[in-house]
């Protein structure tokens, strides 16, 4: 029987909810320390990416234009149109 996979709501509040759920599981011994640790590290990465996005949006709003970058088979192309 396939178990239904719960999808995380893709917002900061959804991320908090997922972390709270992990707290519950860990407290009740339904999860292990390794899983909790990897979830926490993943959450930190997501938050840092989001923070960078917010900063980039603020710079963009202030008039700064970014040079597009593309990672191709030949390497990194600066100023490439994707």
């Amino acid at each position, binding site marked *: 029987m396939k178990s239904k996979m719960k999808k995380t709501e893709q917002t*900061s509040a959804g991320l908090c909810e997922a972390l*709270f759920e992990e707290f519950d599981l860990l407290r009740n011994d339904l999860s292990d320390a390794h899983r909790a*640790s990897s979830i926490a590290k993943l959450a930190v990465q997501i*938050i840092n990416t989001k923070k960078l996005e*917010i900063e980039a949006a603020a710079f963009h709003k202030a008039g700064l234009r970014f040079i597009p970058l593309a990672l191709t088979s030949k390497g990194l192309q600066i100023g490439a149109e994707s």
Partner: protein
Amino acid sequence: MSFNSAINFALNDKSTLYTEVQKNILSLIEEIEKIYKKHLHRNTGEHCDICGKGVFTKEIMPKNQNSNVTFTYLPRNVIVGYEHRPSDSPILCFSHSCGWNKVFKDKQRQHIFDNCIDDDQWKLSKFDYEEEMIQKYGLPDEKIDLNFAMYLAKRLLQLSREKRKENDGRRN
């Protein structure tokens, strides 16, 4: 008439004609403030979302095992940064809400410092202008949520380390 204009009317020194009305309005405002503060610091009777400690949990002080002094954890209704949207606020025990309080204040100060324009910089060190600066340059809701998520992730990492140590101890 809006609530703000009623407050402005009550605080206006020039209108000496309406002192009685002003007093009444001020007493009503005080009453509203009392009810609101009581609501914010109301004991929920629920458990902390992070550690699961609740209102009836009593713990012996860990540093002094012989002591009979006990803690009672009282999860609060609304935590710092969520006062304007209490329905979104998580429930935290005293120690975790203190931890979050410190993180929030540091982040708030940093955000104000980073975004403050040159003309307002002299207000940074003045306590009287604290509210004004928070209103102008305070953390937006999205950043509050992100900082809280970061706080949670760090607590989860800490808890996982503790659990790992516990498990290693059991094996040895």
